[in-house]
């Protein structure tokens, strides 16, 4: 398979990418191989983001056209993709309705080897606990844009611990006012200062296949 998929995705040439994916799919190239090329393209994008050659707009657009490309491969692939890092449960903590940052991270994670379960906004502790029991994620991500919600994150993590689940899951936090000091205060395992940092941390916390 030529590198055209990698190049078209990494250069954000949407029409060219979708055409290339259709062509390869019609030729009978295994879907997993095509997804592999797409993920290679996403890694190029991630590298460029880290080097500050690409910015959030490219990450957002790349996630969108990645999903469009995967959708060509069939419904079962669009749903499961290649979740080699397992499940990532994400949500905005209770007391906060902001979701754009969380949505961007969720979207990008789903293009980077995770099956993402999005709990939405204003997620109370009991919903996190239920999701951890049901989905068995390796990592969860708690988002907040409000300093007033920091204590809510702390409370939720405490309740996850009291439910006997803390050792079963790594917890990432993120959002505008989040800092390492706040991450330590709430008892999380790490904080993503931007979407690429979140992906890197999530992948290293989740381990491989």
């Amino acid at each position, binding site marked *: 398979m030529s590198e055209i998929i990698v190049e078209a995705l990494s250069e954000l040439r949407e029409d060219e990418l979708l055409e290339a994916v259709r062509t390869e799919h019609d030729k009978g190239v295994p879907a997993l191989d095509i997804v592999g090329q797409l993920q290679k393209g996403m890694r190029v994008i991630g590298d460029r983001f880290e080097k500050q050659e690409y910015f959030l707009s490219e990450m957002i657009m790349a996630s969108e056209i990645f999903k469009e490309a995967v959708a060509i491969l069939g419904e079962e692939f669009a749903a499961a993709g290649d979740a080699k890092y397992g499940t990532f449960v994400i949500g905005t903590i209770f007391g906060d309705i902001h979701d754009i940052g969380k949505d961007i991270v969720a979207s990008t994670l789903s293009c980077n080897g995770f099956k993402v379960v999005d709990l939405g906004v204003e997620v109370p502790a009991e919903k996190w606990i239920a999701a951890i029991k049901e989905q068995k994620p390796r990592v969860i991500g708690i988002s907040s844009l409000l300093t007033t919600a*920091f204590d809510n994150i702390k409370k939720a993590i405490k309740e996850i611990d009291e439910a006997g689940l803390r050792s079963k899951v790594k917890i990432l936090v993120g959002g505008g006012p989040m800092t390492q000091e706040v991450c330590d205060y709430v008892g999380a395992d790490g904080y993503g200062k931007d979407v690429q940092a979140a992906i890197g941390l999530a992948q290293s916390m989740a381990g491989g296949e």
Partner: protein
Amino acid sequence: MKTVALEATDRTPVMLEYAGFAAAATGMSFAEFAGDPLKGTDAMIETFKKVGGADGLDYGSYTPALLSFIWLSKVLVSGEHLPADEPWQVQEIELMKPEDYDKIVDMGWEAFFPQFLESNIKAGLMEQFGGFVGIQREVLQKWGAVDAPIMQAGTITTPYEMFCGGRTMPKFIFDLYRMPDKVEKAMEAAAPYMAPQAIDLTKQLGLPAIWIGGWRSASEMLARSLWERFVWPYFKRIANEVLDAGIIPLFHLDSSWTRDLEMFKEFPAGKCIISFDGSTDIVKAKEILGDTMCIMGDVPASLFSHGTPEDVYDYCRNNIKKIGPTGYIIHSGCDIPIDAKVENVSAMMKAAEAK
């Protein structure tokens, strides 16, 4: 004003920016603060005294309705959509549709904007905001009675920020890639209407500055090519209109603008304030813009809410060393958060007054 003009002063000044913090600090419900801006001003004044005062404030009154005007979004308001003791929050859902770009061009912004607000956000919003504007003289009289200067009452942003809020950020980014010419035409149609009303109000009230905000249009949010086409020309246009009116542009820049700081050198020296929230490299800003504009900022929100007075004091002293003493105003990174501790806010003035 000497600090804005990059002249030496006997110490670094401190400006305060807060709204919901005043409700929390005085025990007023967020519903009451949001619902009655004059009572909200009283709470802001009481809070100003509680923290020990400062050299001035960004604004003297507040209404959450303002957020709808600059985000083209609904705001969930305390006491209306939320419990009375929960702070208001912007609800970012897709209210503006792709076909609205053509509507803006066809109808003109003056016709599109009010009907969009009334139909999609809240009936009566224009009247509500008109009422808020109408009380501004009384607001300034209240602050005058406690000898606290107010910088601005006019709020402007670029078409980018409005469309981004109305479309939601991801969908707007898709629009920039998929229909850039359409977006640009709509921006061109809207741009002439961004500044004039705020300029008129500012002149009537005799205030020195106008707030020009950028948050989703920050450098870290988008590719340089997109920023150069869809952000900077409109930022520059608005700022120059404000400057031509003899008013200080107060650039309120959230998220990181580090990549594009050089562009602000285009503005005349000693006539602007550039305010950061902690994401932009403020030391680099001083290196690049120190001879051009007054820098304001950037005490992080988390220090006010979860730090100690010593943390805030040390941060400010460090900033005075790195950024000051001339051409620097101590300020929070964006608004002082709702759950800030009063003693942490007071620490800014202590840092400014320390020898």
